[in-house]
């Protein structure tokens, strides 16, 4: 399987609190992240709010330039690309945001929203062609009959319908990768599976790869069940592997703690779970990240003089399966 997108030692630092008199402080939202996405593959990037997963997604889509490291599109460093090449990369990696309410222009009809990129990238040259292409897109995402939706404005659609429009826009340029950042978290529970199935369906038809970003491990497990899962904590990926292996046999103490703490929709199962006790419940600030392994102040397996000194490397425990934890050294 050829690699379509790769993040190599990517870091993103933001400056916080810069004023006339102070140069501010550096917060590393993403810290030496390595990720690979094969053609047509699904990779779930899971973590809690503030862990840097959204920033990682923006880096993957070329919306943020990393402060260090490289983003490779079919092996080519995208930030060294020529203008035309970069444009092609940006067209090929589309992003779906969490909020279907703010990601559509309220002044444009659905036709306007969906036809603009087609014209911009010269995929259509006349109004007739655009109407036909937009109809096809709407049918593809289940907004039928298309005539009924084409001239509507976003406010006339429900949240689920809007997210379908956003998905239609993302697939309209035949992308290779879609970065889906919490695509269903603002959608009603009863509509989520429809959207997830639609996305999977498009993957089968178009061969698009997904970087699926979520805080909901159960949804991540379902969506990436035939793919991979990466667990992120304070800007670092702590564990990576085939999805069911990561979720059912978690290795990193952080992943284990998470999985032991998350309630499940089954009264007997959830009440029998044993919570892993942490040394501290405080989540460190990105401005004051712990030395060594970032989880060490909370980790019940903390080894003094080791975990707090140097950040652990990636230790492989199987094919495509690694953990950044000294327990697996």
């Amino acid at each position, binding site marked *: 399987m050829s690699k379509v997108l790769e993040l190599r030692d990517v870091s993103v630092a933001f400056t916080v609190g810069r004023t006339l008199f102070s140069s501010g402080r550096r917060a590393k939202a993403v810290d030496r992240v390595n990720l690979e996405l094969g053609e047509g593959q699904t990779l779930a990037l899971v973590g*809690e709010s503030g862990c840097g997963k959204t920033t990682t997604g923006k880096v993957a889509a070329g919306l943020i330039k990393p402060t260090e490291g490289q983003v490779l599109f079919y092996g080519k460093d995208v930030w060294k690309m020529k203008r035309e090449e970069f444009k092609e990369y940006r067209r090929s990696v589309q992003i779906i945001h969490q909020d279907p309410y703010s990601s559509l222009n309220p002044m444009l009809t659905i036709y306007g929203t969906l036809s603009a990129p087609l014209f911009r990238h010269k995929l259509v040259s006349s109004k007739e062609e655009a109407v036909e292409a937009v109809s096809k897109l709407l049918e593809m995402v289940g907004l039928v009959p298309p005539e009924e939706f084409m001239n509507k404005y976003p406010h006339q659609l429900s949240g689920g319908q809007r997210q379908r429009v956003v998905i239609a826009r993302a697939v309209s340029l035949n992308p290779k990768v879609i970065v889906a950042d919490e695509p269903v978290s603002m959608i009603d529970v009863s509509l989520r*599976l429809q959207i997830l199935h639609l996305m999977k369906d498009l993957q089968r038809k178009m061969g698009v790869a997904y970087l699926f970003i979520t805080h909901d491990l*159960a949804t991540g497990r379902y969506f990436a069940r035939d793919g991979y899962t990466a667990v992120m904590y304070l800007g670092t990926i702590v564990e990576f592997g085939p999805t069911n292996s990561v979720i059912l046999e978690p290795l990193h103490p952080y992943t284990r703690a998470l999985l032991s*703490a998350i309630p*499940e929709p089954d*009264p007997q199962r*959830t*009440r029998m779970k044993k919570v892993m006790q942490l040394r501290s*419940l405080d*989540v460190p600030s990105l401005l004051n990240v712990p030395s060594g392994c970032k989880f060490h102040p909370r980790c019940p397996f903390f080894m003094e003089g080791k975990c707090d000194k140097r950040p652990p490397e990636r230790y492989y425990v199987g094919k495509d399966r690694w953990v950044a934890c000294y327990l697996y050294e």
Partner: protein
Amino acid sequence: MMVIATGREPVIIVRNLSVEYPTPRGVVKAIRGVNLEVYKGETLFIVGESGSGKSTLGLALMNLVPRPGRIREGEIIYRVDGSEVNLLKLPPEEQRRFRWRYVSMVFQSALNSLNPVLRVWDQLYDVIKAHDMNVSREEAYEKIRSLLSLVRLDADRVLRAYPHQLSGGMRQRVMIAMALLLDPKIVILDEPTTALDLLTQKNILEVLKDIKSKLGTTMIFITHDLSLAAELADRIAVMYAGKIVELGDVYEVFYRPKHPYTYALLRTIPKLTSVEEELYPIPGSPPDMVNMPPGCKFHPRCPYAADVCREVEPPDEWVASGHLVACHLWRKLKLEVGVP
């Protein structure tokens, strides 16, 4: 209608409650004839999607439905020490007192509902003073200290702090302590953990379990998250389009649901660690609350819908003692979910 399960003592009785919000598009019938009893000491979960009316029901229980919304009809009776209090008939001043003392609420937006320019101590002390001028500073301090320790906070550290110096989980625990300050018998919690990180969320759930076992407080949770209900509920009420469509013991509702909506919900949510099973999308969308379909409001999405469902709204029926369902077809349907 008002069957009382034996041995259980209702502390709230809601009768035929309807709440409406006028909007430019028309009247939103947020709650349509809800009947509900809340029992002493229980943890009741009201679950539903956005627009199902669950948050409105929570507010209505305290007569706090925001204007221009209004309670169109119905009664909310509180049983206090053997006597009945009809909340909607109380004068406003008495309602206010009744609220903190007898029933209090922790809101969804609790993270922002502390005053940013006052220390935690001042905010907690104010609540006590506002309701009882005679409490001494020392008594108040003792009370506050014991509650903070119940919610697993270090009083010495927290009381002197301003809200921004506390983490989200700590602020949420302060809010829970505040809700308990006047020893209410009932606490209503609207999505108390949604804004918190996952490990903190679990900690708050443990705190709430402590409160339940130590103080015996009756708790009403309002949430869209079925996992929280599975974790904590004694009973669960499932709302759809402004009505309770199913109500019962948490194990009954999860393992032997009787309403097709409950059944569909349970089969549409991804599971975290259980064996992978097929999930099924629910077709269609939740109803437009201004322009609802006739008959059962779930019928356009229900795979079992019959003619009667399209015409007549189903009555509430008792499936068994304590298990209520509003579905014409419940007797005929076999809706089994992985019974353990």
